[in-house]
């Protein structure tokens, strides 16, 4: 595994967590406005 692969994985995981997390948050907020 190249030396900086963990950085790439971390960036992609964090991006997914933020975007999916915000989508879930919005969904829950719109259930009880």
């Amino acid at each position, binding site marked *: 595994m*190249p*030396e*900086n*692969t963990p*950085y*790439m994985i*971390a*960036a*992609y995981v*964090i*991006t*997914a967590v*933020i*975007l*999916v997390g*915000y*989508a879930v948050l*919005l*969904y829950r*907020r*719109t259930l009880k*406005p």
Partner: protein
Amino acid sequence: MRLLKTGRWITAVGLVLLAGVYVRALAFTPVERFQGPAQKIYYVHVPSAVVAMMAMGLVGLAGILFLLLKDPRFDRFGEASAEVGTAFSVVMLTTGPIWAKPIWGTWWTWDARLTLTLFLFLLFLGYLLLRGAVTDPGLRARYSAVLGICGLVLLPFIHLSVYLFRTLHPQPIVLKPSAPSLPGEMLVTLLMSFLVFVILYVGFVTQRYALSLLREQADHHA
């Protein structure tokens, strides 16, 4: 509510397409020779930065239109775009340092581009805090519109900062007057990712706008 359902569908489609972009970027886009796999962070960092800036630009435009027309829909849109822009600027400000550490050897440096993008994030936060602090809806909308216009004015400085100041941050390789200096496969991945981030922005803003509308209707009936 139809608007809310539309927003949810657009968001769901955007998230599925995001998974597709991940597969293309990680498995089917070549690894850059000098930076290695860390270069692939570019495919999430750049679209998030462009969408965050686009979100602030639209907050500013909505602010101008609100001040001119006094239409509450522009205020509602500005609020939605600012909240969604905050989420994208968090992606930008976390993926940037993760790329910088292996490539520059440091997580952060106080150069012009990085500092101005931090200002952008702080402006988003300030905009949302302002909206939370002012209870009068008319005043809140006016103050927010002015702050949004300040954010709009910041955008050209962010884009041009890499030309105006000595900075570590790379110069634009796509959004520049000459042709993009990126191999075709990488450019396609970047454009696909940008399109998906825009779809997510539209889905999020539609939902957030519908949420504001629902809250206003609930307050009206209370």
